[in-house]
Every structure is written in C-alpha cells, then in structure tokens.
C-alpha cells in the first residue's frame, strides 16, 4: 500500500507586505519640526519631520551622496534637512538645495520623498507607486479623533512578522488563554462566529449572550452604571481593512436589553483601534488605541483603559515574540489551519492578491529554506 504523504500548504509563515498601501509612520505627536524621527516602514528607513508650516515629510533616510542617515542631521530653513556628513541639504520634495563644496547643484541629486497624509492622529506614508497614492484608500479610523469618542493608545514594537499580529486580532479565542485575568473567558471559544468579506475588508462577528462579564468589562460597566451586577451580552465585531488595520467594535450590555438587535443603550461600547506597520520581515510597529463612547469627560477612565489595555497587549507581545522565535527555530515545520482562522485566512487572501498584483511573492524572500 502506498501512503500519500505529500502535503502542500500556501500558508506563508513570513508574509511579505504590499507596498501600494498607506501605513502609519507614527503618531501625529511623534513627528515634529524640532527634530527628525528615524523609523523603518515596510523595509524602508525613513527620516520623518515637519516643515515650518507643520506639513509632515517622509524622506528616504540616506543621503544621495554617500547614504549617510539624514535622520542624524538637522532641520534648517523652511522645509529642509541637512545631511550630518557633508552638509548637503534637501527640501521636502527630496531635492538637493545645497552642495557646500561646489557652486552648482548636481541635477541628479535627489532622495525619494514619499507621499504622506495626516489623519486620525497618525501620519501615514505610501511607499509604493506614488501614482496610486489615493487618500480615499486610507482606512477609516474616525473614532480616533471624533468628538463622540475618547481614549488614547500606545505603540508596541513587536518582534514578529506583521501578519502574526493580524492573525492574533482576527481570532480572539486566544483571549481565554492569553488574557485569562482580564478579558478572557471560556465562552469565547464556545460561541459561534460569523465571517464576511469584500474586496478590501473582512469582518468577524461574535456574540456571547447572557454571560458573566470578565473583570475588564465589569469595571467598564460600573464606570457607566455604578453598582452594576448581573449577566451581560458581550460582542466582538472585528473589522479588518486592507492592508493592516483592524478596528474592533467591543462591548457588553445588560443581558436581554436588545444589544444584539441594535439597542446598546444599557451597555458600554469601545473600539480597539489597531494598525500595524511592517518594519522588517520579523518586526512591526503596532499602533493601538482604545476608544470609548461613554464618560467622555473622564481622563481617569482614559488613563485606566490605556493602562489596562497596555497590560493585556503586553501579554500578546510576549506570545508573538515566542511564536516568531518558535517559527524561526522550526524552519521545516508548516502552518496548519483551524476553523478559528477563518477571518485571518481571508486577510491573508486579500494580502496575497495585492502582492500578486504588485508582482511580488507572498512569502518573504528572506524566509529560511522550507518556509
């Protein structure tokens, strides 16, 4: 008897990132006219700063001449950056404006200047074909700066491929095991979920009815409804937007008061705003915020929620780091998929289609053999 032992899988362990996309380069407050931020976005080292009139600028962080990092230079004049090595200056368009050792400018002397947009408290950058840099493609994260929402967030420098973070957020059954002391509960794995998708988004919806609120949510309910006791209906509606933004509509409401049908008036609602920027094949900048639409006046609650989520995401970070290490330590092993990966697998498919359209392979070329 012959046993067919061949196996094929298309589940890349080290997923490449599309370049024709907006990625967050930094929080709005991180990019200033006082200094230059050095940050690698999608494999491209950038020098990020603002012009005198406040416009954000993203230049390739390497001087045209000898590739010295411009981010170690200084800002001069209205919109210029000066190379720290031989003093060449570039304007916001990346064009050389001064070559100190000669009376003319070499007409070829430019550094790439990438399209940037400032929206939703972030500065976004487009590293691919600039003719495709359509502001309409920016993910909707309006909760970040709407007067109807309050909250704050942080950045995690996650030592893993960005897709592992997307996987993590598209399947929240891990909360029961990774976040058992805060938001985890066994109903997460037990409840059904529904997945839908379109050309550039994926939505995973999960309702858990008539359950005990886990500690994080009980505290939130009591912030809005002091002394609250009893069962809740809990929801998690995960919205993925291409290429790497996931806004999760989360909350609980007093059980049986109509939240699943649309009446959330007896509940508390948050939005976990996540947008992940690939840095290298094995690292990413994970920008997150927790926004809420109740008790908007309370800075105390804003701080408590930010600190609480900081703790929860710290648990994710530890897992992601360990997972990336295990992936690298087991190059001959493949990924297998479970039903809970439905959302994450749709995300992969959208990313792989985009990579194919850009003519680039889905698996990162630097992946070790067997990946």
């Amino acid at each position, binding site marked *: 008897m012959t046993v067919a032992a061949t196996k094929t899988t298309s589940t890349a362990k080290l997923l490449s990132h599309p370049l024709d996309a907006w990625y967050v380069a930094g929080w709005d407050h991180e990019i200033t006219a006082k200094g230059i931020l050095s940050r690698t976005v999608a494999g491209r080292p950038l020098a990020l700063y603002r012009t005198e009139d406040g416009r954000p600028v993203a230049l390739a962080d390497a001087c045209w001449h000898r590739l010295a990092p411009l981010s170690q230079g200084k800002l001069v004049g209205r919109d210029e950056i000066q190379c720290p090595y031989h003093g060449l200056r570039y304007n916001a368009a990346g064009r050389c*404006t001064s070559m100190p050792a000669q009376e003319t400018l070499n007409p070829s002397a430019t550094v790439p200047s990438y399209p940037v947009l400032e929206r939703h408290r972030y500065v976004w950058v487009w590293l691919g074909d600039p003719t495709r840099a359509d502001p309409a493609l920016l993910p909707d994260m309006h909760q970040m700066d709407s007067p109807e929402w309050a909250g704050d967030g942080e950045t995690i420098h996650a030592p893993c491929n960005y897709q592992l973070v997307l996987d993590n957020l598209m399947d929240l059954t891990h909360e029961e095991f990774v976040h058992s002391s805060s938001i985890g509960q066994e109903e997460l794995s037990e409840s059904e979920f529904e997945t839908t998708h379109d050309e550039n988004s994926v939505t995973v919806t999960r309702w858990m009815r008539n359950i005990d609120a886990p500690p994080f949510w009980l505290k939130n309910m009591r912030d809005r409804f002091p002394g609250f006791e009893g069962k809740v209906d809990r929801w998690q509606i995960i919205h993925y937007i291409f290429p790497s933004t996931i806004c999760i509509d989360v909350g609980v409401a007093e059980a049986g008061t109509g939240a699943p049908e649309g009446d959330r008036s007896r509940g508390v609602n948050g939005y976990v705003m996540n947008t992940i920027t690939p840095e290298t094949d094995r690292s990413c900048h994970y920008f997150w915020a927790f926004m809420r639409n109740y008790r908007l006046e309370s800075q105390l609650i804003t701080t408590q929620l930010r600190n609480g989520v900081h703790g929860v995401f710290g648990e994710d970070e530890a897992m992601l780091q360990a997972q990336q290490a295990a992936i690298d330590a087991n190059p001959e092993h493949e990924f297998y998929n479970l039903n809970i990966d439905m959302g994450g697998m749709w995300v992969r498919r959208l990313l792989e289609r985009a990579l194919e359209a850009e003519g680039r392979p889905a698996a990162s070329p630097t992946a070790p053999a067997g990946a």
Partner: protein
Amino acid sequence: MADSQHEIWQNAAVVAAEDVAAGIRRVVLRPEQPRPVRPGEHVDVRVLVHGEPQVRSYSVVDAADDGTQLALSVFRTPTSRGGSVFMHGLEPGQVLEITQPLQNFPLRVGAPSYVLLAGGIGITAVAGMAALLRRLGADYRLVYVARSRAAMAYLDDLAALHGDRLEAHVDDEGGSLDVPALVAGVPESAELYMCGPIRLMDAVRRAWAERGLDRTSLRYETFGNSGWFDAEPFVVRVPRLGAETVVGSDESLLEALEREGLDMMSDCRKGECGLCQVKVLGLAGRIDHRDVFYSDRQKETGTSMCCCVSRAVSAAPETVPGERPAAVLTIDVP
C-alpha cells in the same frame, strides 16, 4: 517612488528597429528580466565603438506596462561618438546587454502643474512623463522644439495623445521658441522638466533664475553631447606626462586621454559630477563648456574644465574658406 540607481545587467533582444524621423531610429527591446518602467528612466547599453565595448545611456521613450518590451530612440549625430552608429545598425533578432531601467530624472507626482520641455531627441526623456501626467489627469503642457519638422520623432502620436496640451515649435518654419516668454508664463508653483541641447537648457536656466523661481522646481537631464559650438578636432597636450594627441570630433577629451593610456578619474560622463576636472594650463582657441558642474563664473575664469564633455574649439580666423587651424589645449590631470 524608490528610485532605481542600481545597475542590473541583462540581455535584451531587438524585436523591431525602424526610422521614426530624420536620423532617429526607434529600437524596441525585449529584456530578459523585465520590470515596469517609470517616466524619466533610462537604460545603459553596451555598445561597440571601433570594436571596443563602451556604455551609452538612452531614455526609455515608451514601454509595455509590465516592461516586457521597451523602446529607445537614438539620434545619429553627424559627429557621433560611435554609440549611435552602433545603435542604428541593430537588426531584429540581435541580442545586446542593457541594464534594468535606471532613474536619474524622476517625475514628482502631485505638483500643481507641469511644463515639459523637449528639444529634439530630448523628447525621449519626457514623452513618458507626458503620458503619465495625462493618465493622472494632471495640469501639464508639453513643449516640443526642433530645427525641422522632419527631425521630430513621434510628433503625430504626441499630437493625437495630448491635443492642445502639445505645443510644437519648429525653427525652420519660423516658430522658434521664445524662452523668456515660456518661462514668464510658468505658474510659480509649477515644475518644469526639460531635456534638450545645452543652449536651450541654459536659456531656460537663465530665465528661470532671472524670474526668481524656485530652482529646485526646474528639473533637467543632461546627455552631455551638445555644446555651444559644433565638435571639431583639437590638439591636447599634457606636458607633465609628455602626452599629446588629437581629440577627434567623434570622441570626448576624456576618451582621447584614456586612449593615450592616461590613468583618468571620472564618473558620470555627462558633465554633472565634476570628478573628471582637468587644469587648463594654456589654450589656443576657446573652451566649449558643455557641463552643468561649473557655475557661469567658473566657466568664465576658464582655469579648469570637465573633460568628459567639454571641448576646445578654434578661435582663429579661417586660413582658407571653411578651414581653420585646430585649437590647442594644454592641460594637467590629477
């Protein structure tokens, strides 16, 4: 856009070659490792000049979206340095070595408006820009100037594609371009991209500076092969090394010095970088500065020159009609 400046050499097969204007041949290539071509990009080509391999740069005038075919257009100058002779001799089926597209002349997307200015064969560098700006719905003008209509490659195609946005100026039809008027009509926020003979580009640079426009908004690419005077043979002497030779009208001073076995330093070979400067010790004649490295002030002092493009020309009166003694240039080299 990540500008590609890294040379990746590959083979490319000639799939078509045809004359598209007086002295201009269109050569369509199929590269082995295609990639999409962006406006302003060129390829370096290994050509044979007198049996010796040399490298020449040619703008990609148009290409298939995926870069599997790309077209160059080569003007055969009366004083060709040899590259255009080789290119004009190419036949379908031949294979030659080219680089993947290289970018020294990137078009910035997002300017409020554009003026694209092409002089003669310079159209090859800006035709792709015009096509892209049209596709993007940008505000642009394409100004195309040449000595005669017969020498204007792609004129009908460009007219069909760009309609009123194309302005053709033909010298021998009395339609010479009024450069100061052109520059005076450029909106302050506009960017001007130009490629053409040095006289045209110099006139635009002067008018641009006089109007006080942002000098970084004036973009240009040099081919380093046109001057204020026609190329003519001249004598070069390097007393310290005991060298002397005649620089032919079809070679550069740098090439002549290399031919004589001098160990010369150079890089761009189109008059931009200044690495090939030589010191002028004596001169019977005048220097035809063809570079963009020196300022006007430096060119006037005449104490050094970029030997990759600049030449000496005779300033003597004609001894017999049409003949003058050749210029004699005495230099020292680093």
